[in-house]
């Protein structure tokens, strides 16, 4: 059971995401039929730790094994979703690839499932220097990436 709860007006969602950086490029996902990029991950499952969820999501959506590193960013995100107000807690962890069979450059495809619906996802390796030229969430990503060597960054994002 994914930790995503809805009332008439609100949605609460608890997600984890992976910051996977290899050779100066970060892995980002984008739905095939939309424009914004985001960090790969998924909703935490009730009873599962964040780390377990992240490992499972990378396996299910991308077909790769990852090792989960440190927690880096804690985001409280407020944005509209469908016609409700969504409040999301998203925890971003550093992850390291453990598989060798995916391309380390360019783009490849995967699938995401939210509430039983399938979404086609594209996974792109984006150069860190290119981040400023694309639509990416969270929108303060450049500032956050600059502080990766520092402690856990806590931010609030209101769309």
């Amino acid at each position, binding site marked *: 059971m994914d930790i995503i709860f809805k009332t008439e007006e*609100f949605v609460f969602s608890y997600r984890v995401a992976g910051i996977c950086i290899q050779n100066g490029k970060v892995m980002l996902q984008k739905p095939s039929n939309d424009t914004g990029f985001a960090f790969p991950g998924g909703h935490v499952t009730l009873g599962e730790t964040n780390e377990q969820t992240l490992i499972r999501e990378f396996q299910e959506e991308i077909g790769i094994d990852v090792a989960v590193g440190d927690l880096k960013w804690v985001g409280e995100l407020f944005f509209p979703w469908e016609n409700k107000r969504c409040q999301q807690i998203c925890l971003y962890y550093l992850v390291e690839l453990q598989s060798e069979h995916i391309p380390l450059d360019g783009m490849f495809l995967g699938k995401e499932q939210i509430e039983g619906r399938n979404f086609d996802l594209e996974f792109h390796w984006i150069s860190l220097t290119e981040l400023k030229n694309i639509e990416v969430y969270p929108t303060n990503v450049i500032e956050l990436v600059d502080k990766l060597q520092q402690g856990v960054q806590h931010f609030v994002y209101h769309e």
Partner: protein
Amino acid sequence: MDISFKLENNKFNYRVCAMIIHNHKILAMHDDRSPYYYLPGGRVRMTETAEDAVLREVQEELHITAKIERPVWLNQAFFTEDVDHLKYHELCIYFLIDVSGTDLLERGTAFTVIEGYRTHTFEWLDFDRIQDEYFYPIFLKKEIYHIPNEFTLRTEIE
């Protein structure tokens, strides 16, 4: 609307806790519904940030307007609660709270505050005293002597 959801015998909670510390003592509370000491705080409401939630809870429970010093722990905890026996999956952010500028320190070592229809009893517990007390969170009994300088993730699986 509190961010707290029950599904069969599982419960998810998103909470905040206030750590109010002075002279090697932490402010703890208990009431007639809980046999253990716990920290001020409560569940975050929809559309509220964690910081707003902890300041609101401190205002409601202690009737003071405090300030946040910084977040200390993000705790993901899995446990079976003593009173309702449900399996909890809880996310809790612990904040260090600054009460300078309030009258909290003048109220004495133990005092009561009425919040609505409930009476809370507050007590300043020395760090050494909480070791043997029926006190939650359990991890704090040891970790209170090593409060991290940075926002730190903890995982607790009972």
